[in-house]
């Protein structure tokens, strides 16, 4: 048996420079460029808004990482470097659109008004999902890779059945955006989602953040050609966008959502970006990737380029940036203090949320548990009497 395998990549599959087929509207230097098919339809105020969104997202992200280091969170999955992909797409959502995220879409959550503390609850271990997925239109984080893409597709099939497609207005029409990672594209569920979405022509956008890594595995392990090309074989268009360019992401996502709402079916967007941090706080990327790579991507930082644009091409001054920084610090402090104040949940309440209609045996188990728990505490009797509810 040979120890290492020869590299047999067949002819016709050189990957070439990744940037070639990339939609870009704002260069890393902060210069706006044209693209034949896509244009950013917002004004400078909108761009400033993106800057604020991305900066606040990053600040909360940093704070969460710090909280984890201090033992306040069990884990944190940072979105560092992916802010443009998340804010650009999140800000493209219409009022009726909904989101099916992975576990890393903190920026998208922000655009839908999800309280960051609610994201932290999951990573602190007080809750498996603590924001309202219906009111926020931001579904719960899904940890099993790829599973949410099918949920998104089914939800989109429901939208069509509800007659929410094809009226020609984002006020009347709805679409779904399903997020996934580059690694996720290998999961059978994702391909099945592509099949169903295509077969039923569902109003959905699959938004793949190709951050180049699935924990320690580089994108080449999952695909030897650009990921956006996967879609064509399932019968719908795919497009690769510079995932560190909030303007391009916004433009591409807007168009794809519009296509979905109008009844023209699914689109796959590959946002070409980079996971600038570790996979999660449990991970040690020095084991598998070179520092060089990170340096290369730092030059393409999604926030820096918007700032450069605003500084060079608008009259946004240092005061404005300072104000955002201050706002960010304030937000971080608030998130931190509310995180620290989170009460631990009470197991007793969980017996009641396993089912909508709780069976007898779970009621008995709850009672047993409470009696047992209370046998250790003096105040036990009182707590049991008042029937403490789950407090997450």
């Amino acid at each position, binding site marked *: 048996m040979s120890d290492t395998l020869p590299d047999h990549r067949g002819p016709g599959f050189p990957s070439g420079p990744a940037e070639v087929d990339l939609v870009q509207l704002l260069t890393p230097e902060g210069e706006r460029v044209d693209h034949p098919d896509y244009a950013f339809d917002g004004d400078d105020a909108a761009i400033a808004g993106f800057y604020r969104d991305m900066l606040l997202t990053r600040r909360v992200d940093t704070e969460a990482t710090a909280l984890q280091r201090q033992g306040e969170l069990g884990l944190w999955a940072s979105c560092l470097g992916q802010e443009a992909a998340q804010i650009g797409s999140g800000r493209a959502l219409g009022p009726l659109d909904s989101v099916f995220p992975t576990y890393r879409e903190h920026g998208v959550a922000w655009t839908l008004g999800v309280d960051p503390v609610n994201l932290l609850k999951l990573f602190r271990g007080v*809750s*498996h999902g603590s924001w309202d*997925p219906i009111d926020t239109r931001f579904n719960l984080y899904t940890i099993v890779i790829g599973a949410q893409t*099918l949920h998104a597709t*089914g*939800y989109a099939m*429901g939208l069509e059945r509800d007659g929410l497609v094809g009226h020609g207005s984002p006020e009347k029409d709805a679409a779904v955006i399903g997020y996934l990672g580059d690694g996720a594209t290998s999961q059978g*569920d994702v391909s099945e989602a592509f*099949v169903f979405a295509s077969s039923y022509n569902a109003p959905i956008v699959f938004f793949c953040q190709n951050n180049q890594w699935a924990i320690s595995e580089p994108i080449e392990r999952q695909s030897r050609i650009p990921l956006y090309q996967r879609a064509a074989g399932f019968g719908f268009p795919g497009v690769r966008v510079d995932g560190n360019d909030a303007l391009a992401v916004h433009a591409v996502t807007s168009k794809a959502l519009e296509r979905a709402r109008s009844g023209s079916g699914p689109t796959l967007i590959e946002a070409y970006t980079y996971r600038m941090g570790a996979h999660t706080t449990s991970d040690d990327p020095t084991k598998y990737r070179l520092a060089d790579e990170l340096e290369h991507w730092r030059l393409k930082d999604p926030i820096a380029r918007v700032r450069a644009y605003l500084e060079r091409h608008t009259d946004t001054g240092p005061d404005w940036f300072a104000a955002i920084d201050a706002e960010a610090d304030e937000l971080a402090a608030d998130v931190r203090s509310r995180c620290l104040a989170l009460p631990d949940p009470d197991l007793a309440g969980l017996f009641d949320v396993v*089912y909508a209609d709780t069976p007898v045996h779970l009621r008995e188990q709850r009672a047993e548990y409470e009696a047992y728990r209370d046998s250790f505490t003096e105040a036990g009797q009182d707590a049991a009497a008042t029937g403490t509810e789950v407090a997450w």
Partner: protein
Amino acid sequence: MTRLTMAKALNAGLRRALEADPKVVLAGEDIGKLGGVFRVTEGLQKDFGEARVIDSPLAESGIIGTAVGMALRGYRPVCEIQFDGFVFPAFDQIVNQVAKMHYRSRGRVRMPMVIRIPFGGGIGAVEHHSESPETYFAHTAGLKVVACSNPVDAYWMIQQAVASDDPVVFLEPKRRYHERAEVDEQASPVPLHSATVVRPGRDLTLLAYGPMVKTCLDAAAAAAEEGRDLEVVDLRSLSPLDLATVVGSVQRTGRAVVVHEAPLNLGMGAELSARITEQCFYALEAPVLRVGGYDMPYPPSRVEDEYLPDLDRVLDAVDRSLAY
């Protein structure tokens, strides 16, 4: 009152569910024009349209996963898995998503989904078409699991399952699809998660569900000729178990035999034996005995009659129990 086969009773029940609530949708492979390989959905696509009776691409994870999404959108999907052995590609969606969504969201979202599975053997089929996967689901917190054993229950239970706000794995004993009974569409049904004593008796309790209820009734009839008075309980609900009925019966008879087609090891008989022993320790005259499939994959059909519990094996266990 209409005389219906179980397949037709299920069809009628599904029809009523579709009529009762516009949010009810059916999905599965070949359930449309073909009406499913067992014809349980026959005519429903014609009458309710392709938007409500959905022929799915050939992908079970896709069927259940998209149904999760439809449920999140307010629908009540009823998914058909074509045969027991083909539920496993959907297992992740069932165990990690369907079962956990209500819990994950602290009750904010519900999963009113039914997963219909024709199950069990005895129809002379090839591999993967005769299995009894109930343990996998009953062990999974967040799912409810029921099995019908006759057309009357089939008619009512399918409607109750569709009306349930919790996900229900609905097991249909495929070899009983063609057995007939009078179904009274005006009657008021037994609650979905209650067991029923289908034959009262004093000497021993036979516990069964799905295809084995008839086998146990036949065994009880045969035993009666030898002067033995066996009680037969149709469990109907495997999760949650209606332990009150089970324990009540065994407290009276002092003996229990559990019968199922699934392999013995960690079959439903294991849980029932453990529970009954916990709750009836002093009442038991004999250990709870189990009659099940042997601990092997389902065999080729020419030998399935040897594999499946039958009247004789049930009576053999009854003898052994009474010998204590």
